[in-house]
């Protein structure tokens, strides 16, 4: 097993050495006299003034030019080799081999809230190779036995900030540790630390896309397994999957949507379908709306707004069907969702058609208020041709 020696750490060490060298050089230089200090200050101020004048001139020239920005150049991103974490995740020993006093020492730092001390201890273990990783796994399992301490570690601003450092400074070691922990706790998926990992890991992996393929694969496989198994943390699981660029099989999503009975589950599934934004998602959403329009009012409204935000083919067709119906209830819901996102003035006739329809005044009043917030341009258009509104009551409210 290898011990991680990231280039970055070497770079930092080099910077540290340079700083030390500079620090060592300065005291060796003769102390300037008061006169020399005065001359130095004079020169420094002159230099400063010159550079400020140049900067101001450049700023003013730039603003006077007011050129339109050129397209952003392509970003040169770091290209890094893949780092495989599976061998360790599979080979990790069962917990319990670390001496109690070592674990107690780490736990004591957590209890004390000594963020930098804890980070230093973790980094030391990360750098110590297999033995250090065993210690860290045991530490994580010990934290699992004390959920309040685990929550405190991440819930406290200063500690959380401190703990981000190992993940940023020793990425490979950290990925290895995370994978081993996920692997060892596969059967007890509800630990506090796992909850945090599900929040952090997808962001970490998304940033380092492709660099930790084993970990990505393990996480997506676990997400699939959990969703299949009926896990209720759908929002967390779907968000994690989306961050990894992974969409679960549509039939599984469809099945969970059909089984969902509470708003939380509906909401997570509908958000996920919106993120997919493909024809399968449109089909599932359309079906959900048509089957549940009088059953789950809030969820259906969310489904319709989700559809309205999508760009996948077939969306417009769905709205055409829903807004050319004799069912005033469906029509009202669909049109409100359709105008819940900004539309250009060309949609004013559609809005006017609704205001002249058989739908009741209270719904139309809500619709006009919604236009005020989301589509003021269309509202202006409707006001300009207010005589085309057939109902006095609606026209009056429109012009108010």
């Amino acid at each position, binding site marked *: 097993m290898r011990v991680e020696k990231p280039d970055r750490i070497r770079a930092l060490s080099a910077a540290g050495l340079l700083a030390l060298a500079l620090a060592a050089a300065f005291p060796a230089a003769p102390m300037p006299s008061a006169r020399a200090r005065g001359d130095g200050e004079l020169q420094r101020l002159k230099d400063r003034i010159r550079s400020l004048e140049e900067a101001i001139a450049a700023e003013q020239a730039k603003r006077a030019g007011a050129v339109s920005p050129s397209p952003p150049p392509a970003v040169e991103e770091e290209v890094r080799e893949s780092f495989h974490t599976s061998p360790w995740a599979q080979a990790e020993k069962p917990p319990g081999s670390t001496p109690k006093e070592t674990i107690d020492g780490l736990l004591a730092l957590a209890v004390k809230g000594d963020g930098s001390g804890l980070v230093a201890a973790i980094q030391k273990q990360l750098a110590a190779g297999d033995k250090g990783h065993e210690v860290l796994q045991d530490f994580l399992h010990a934290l699992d036995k004390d959920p309040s301490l685990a929550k405190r570690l991440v819930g406290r601003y200063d500690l959380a900030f401190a703990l981000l450092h190992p993940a940023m400074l020793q990425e490979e070691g950290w990925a290895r540790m995370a994978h081993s922990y996920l692997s060892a706790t596969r059967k007890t998926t509800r630990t506090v630390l796992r909850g945090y990992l599900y929040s952090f890991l997808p962001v970490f992996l998304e940033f380092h896309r492709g660099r930790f393929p084993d970990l990505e694969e393990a996480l997506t496989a676990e997400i699939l397994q959990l969703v299949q198994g009926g896990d209720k943390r759908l929002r967390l699981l779907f*968000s994690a999957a989306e961050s990894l660029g992974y969409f679960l099989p549509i039939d599984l999503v469809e099945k969970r949507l059909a089984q969902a009975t509470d708003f939380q589950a509906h909401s997570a599934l509908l958000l996920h379908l919106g993120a997919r934004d493909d024809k399968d998602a449109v089909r599932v959403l359309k079906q959900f709306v048509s089957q549940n329009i009088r059953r789950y009012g809030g969820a259906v409204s969310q489904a319709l707004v989700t559809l309205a935000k999508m760009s996948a083919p077939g969306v417009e067709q769905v709205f055409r069907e829903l807004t050319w119906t004799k069912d005033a209830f469906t029509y009202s819901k669909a049109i409100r969702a359709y105008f819940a996102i900004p539309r250009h003035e060309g949609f004013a006739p559609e809005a006017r058609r609704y205001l002249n329809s058989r739908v009741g005044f209270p719904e139309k009043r809500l619709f006009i208020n919604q236009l005020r917030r989301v589509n003021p341009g269309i509202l202006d258009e409707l006001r300009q041709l207010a005589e085309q509104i057939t109902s006095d009551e609606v026209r009056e409210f429109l012009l108010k």
Partner: protein
Amino acid sequence: MHERCDRFKTIGAIFTAAALLALTAGSCSRKTPPSASPSQEEASPAAKEPAETAELEQLRVRAAALEAQLASLADKNTPPADDASAVLMGHLDNLNGPGMYTAMEKRLLGEEKDHRELLQFFIACDQEHEKILTLTHDSRLVFAMLRLVALYPGETAALCAYMIRNTREQTGSFVRREIYNFLPVFLNYHRGKYPELRRLLKEDIVFQLQKGGDYLYKLMLAMRDLQFRPPVDSMLPILYSEEKRSLHGAVLSHLASRGDEGLQAILKFVEEGGDGLQQSVSQALKHIVDLDAAGRKGLALRFVEHQEPAIRKAATFYYFGHPREPADFERALGYLNSEVTVAQQTLIIGKLKRNSPAIYQQLIKESGKVRAEKAKAILEKAAARAKKEAGNEG
């Protein structure tokens, strides 16, 4: 866009802090090493010193004016339309974490002009508030910025210093809010490493307090995290401003924790507060009475016997918030018989019942002395209830 943030509820604070961190990356103005100018004429030290001092002073004034001009150019309504801003904004719009990282890294490690570009970008985001919220809340962008903070703490410290200096006058900007969120955590993590930045932040806190304390809550959190106690005088402009009434409670609480110096400021405020600050004076009196109860004996009496009726009444009201001896019966009776509202009468009877039962019982016995109808009715009702209970027990 912010849905992703939900996943970070537990560590949301960290990430927000991180975003703040990233934002706060500013660079200290570089201190070029002094170098004697060979072109300068030599003169005798005695003759040169006054002239040199005057010249130095002129140059300092000029440099300060230019810095202010540059900072103002950076902040004015015109968002920068250069490549740097377009690049950064492009990554923001695309929620491109790695792209943002690379673009910011280049500028973080650069020179003052690069730091200026970053600051301009933050200010441009601030002007379109939705953008600054995205930058500081979207997990992909926050991660990128946190990574920079972790990898380049020295450069981050320098950028923070640059930003503090160049946003001093923009007291209400989100950038400043983020500075107060992030920097104390950063400095505490790197304890002892950036004393100049710590000093600069403390000076800035004092400056902001004197300017009226925008983001006072954040300032106070920063003070707590830095274990910094600014001079009491720096808080007085807020306390004496009628427009800042909503902040008075926080300032008074702080002063009450500042020992003698804070207490003197509160005492002075009560005497000089005036009608416009009556509500805040009342809050100040509560702190005084609480301090009295906590061991600073004799403080409260001065105000419960004050010649100004409004001060006397408010002080007496809080005075009975603590246990009192039967000797204070007349004072309680006097309060009930003074021109106080029915609500205040009811509240003080409740306080006496809880904290000073002897006085309460005596009031029940001598309820005839109470002139206020509502208070009298309450006491008589209590007396009747007590009598009934005594009868039942008998």
